[in-house]
């Protein structure tokens, strides 16, 4: 498990599932379909990403293609980090 994956999983499980996973959250699971994330949750997630990784997320990047599963988040963070570097 990569660092990104560990950190993102921990944030989601702690912050949205309050440490209580009914079934282990798979990396490909949709956060929307599982009802894990709501409109506030998106903003919490974005705020976490910006604070933790020090980049800025543009409005047009706020789409499920970037943020809706652990896999997609890892890829998104990796891409942003590469651009920043």
């Amino acid at each position: 498990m990569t660092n990104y994956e560990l950190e993102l999983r921990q944030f989601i499980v702690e912050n949205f599932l309050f440490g209580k996973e009914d079934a282990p959250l798979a990396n490909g699971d949709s956060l929307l379909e599982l009802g894990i994330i709501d409109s506030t949750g998106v903003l919490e997630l974005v705020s976490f990403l910006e604070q933790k990784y020090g980049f800025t997320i543009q409005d047009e990047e706020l789409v499920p293609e970037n943020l809706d599963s652990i896999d997609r988040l890892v890829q998104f963070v990796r891409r942003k980090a590469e651009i920043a570097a």
Partner: protein
Amino acid sequence: MCGIAGILNLTGEPVDPCLPRRMIERLRHRGPDGVGYYADAGVGLGHARLSILDLAGGHQPMSNEDQSLWITFNGEIFNYVELREELVRRGHQFATRSDTEVILHAYEEYGEACVRHFNGQWAFAIWDTRARTLFLSRDRLGVRPLFYRASREQFAFASEIKSILALPGVPREIDPIALDQIFTFWVSLLPPGHSMTVDGGVVTVKRYWEPRFATTTNGAHSEDYYADALRDLLRDATRLRLRSDVPVGAYLSGGLDSTVITALIRQCSDVELRTFSITFDDPEFDESAFQREATRFLQTDHQEVRCSYADIGRVFPDMIWHTEKPVLRTAPAPLFLLSKLVRDHQYKVVLTGEGSDEILGGYDIFKEAKIRRFWSAQPDSRLRPTLLKRLYPYLPNLQNQSSAYLQAFFHVGSQDTADPFFSHVPRWELTARSKTFFSDAVRAETEGYDGYAELRTMLPADYHRWDPFCQAQHLETGHLLPGYILSSQGDRMAMAHSVEGRFPFLDYRVVEFAAGLAPSLKMKVLDEKHLLKRCAKDLIPPSVRARSKQPYRAPDGKSFFHSARPGYVDELLAPERVRKDGLFHPQAVAKLAQKFREGKAIGIKDNMALTGILSTQLLVDQYITHFGERDSHD
């Protein structure tokens, strides 16, 4: 307004006279002006009185002339004057001026169908000593409560659950399925618009009325015609609700509905009018500017109570004692403070604007469903989602969302628009997220329960043919209005301080008229309560008429996690306490509480979960752990 209670021993054993007294003692807040009891073989009735009509002659339980019928009654029959005249013409003789006696004679005259003649808000029980039957009824919309519990040996009823729980042998346990529905104990509630008969141990429940939101007008007349008709009906509904032998005041929120009612009171009466409002320290919730404008325009003697986070946190436990069930919002708490303000000014009766949003189409959920349906027809549209942002200007978190996320949150494209619950599913699913905090034991017990399936069995036979707007109105009026607005926010908060609420919009004539109106008269494009605004022209300040709807809300999490946190919060949310009470997952609750302590919980979902958990924990504390310790008069 009063508290009622009674016991029928189905074995024929005499009723222990202490029991009706014990039940009524739990209801003294509903009727501080006097108590009365009646006992017959196997039967005991009790009554706690709040004197409003016929102050000298309205004592209860009351009998007819030959004492063959005995009634205990909570509520008002507003058309009692006209009914009395009709009954006198038919040969009935009256000993009092009260509406209670009118019920008895109407029952003699019309039998169980008497309730169809009533225009009012009621819960009553009539003991027929000859037939040895008990007849109980509840008003059409569910303004007044009537709980009951039937076992093989005994039938018991009361205005509030706490009165039934005062009886020996009644289990004070949380029913997990009821918790799933946000109800609580093993006690039943007679549904609105229903009557019931207990005869020889057989309990029969019958519906006598249901609003049918099926369009009957079809635009046969002009908008002005319907606006005039609505205004005439509302004026008459208000006139009837001013019948009282004590002064009548009004709640004034600063919104359209209560301002219209206040204006109509001014038209019906020359007496100085006193109005009452809540204001909030937090400007996000405060409407005082509109309230003051309305009071200036309508020249009322105005009183207000200012509400802080600390106030809500302070009264929340008392509020839960009165709601008797968990809540997901703190909104009843300011209404608890408001009824205290009314009582402190020696008022017992207030008229309010309750019911207008349901019957005339005011709620955002109606508009939201219309936009979602409109967007679902073109899921790829870029412009249609912007309507949702305009709908919720008071929810900043929605303003920053992309179309893709809005589409997901509002189930656009993913939900069948023919779903009978299309309008409410996104909101109910959001609410259901709170259940993830249930303990493993509660989740196991509720696993097979399907609330949607149960609700589907309760829909009117031709519901699927109704306009979607009417379907949404039915869900609000038939379920959420009696289940929360009229109970947790209504009867229970007003009666906590012995105050009777009266609701002109819920006069059945107004409801039936509104139910038959074409949806376009209620919401014209996206203009909510279109017809009411039209009929309010010249009645109320233009600014109040023109303002966009602000739903009544109160601060949730901040009321428990502000600079001075109420002591019970940490105690009830502590892992060891949560584990002992057994309803929620201790670690998950601890993490949620920590999120609030750190100021990171800002969303509706977290706030609802916190309020739901805290209110349930308070119920356990007050009704299971320490039930006998609470002063009956509280």
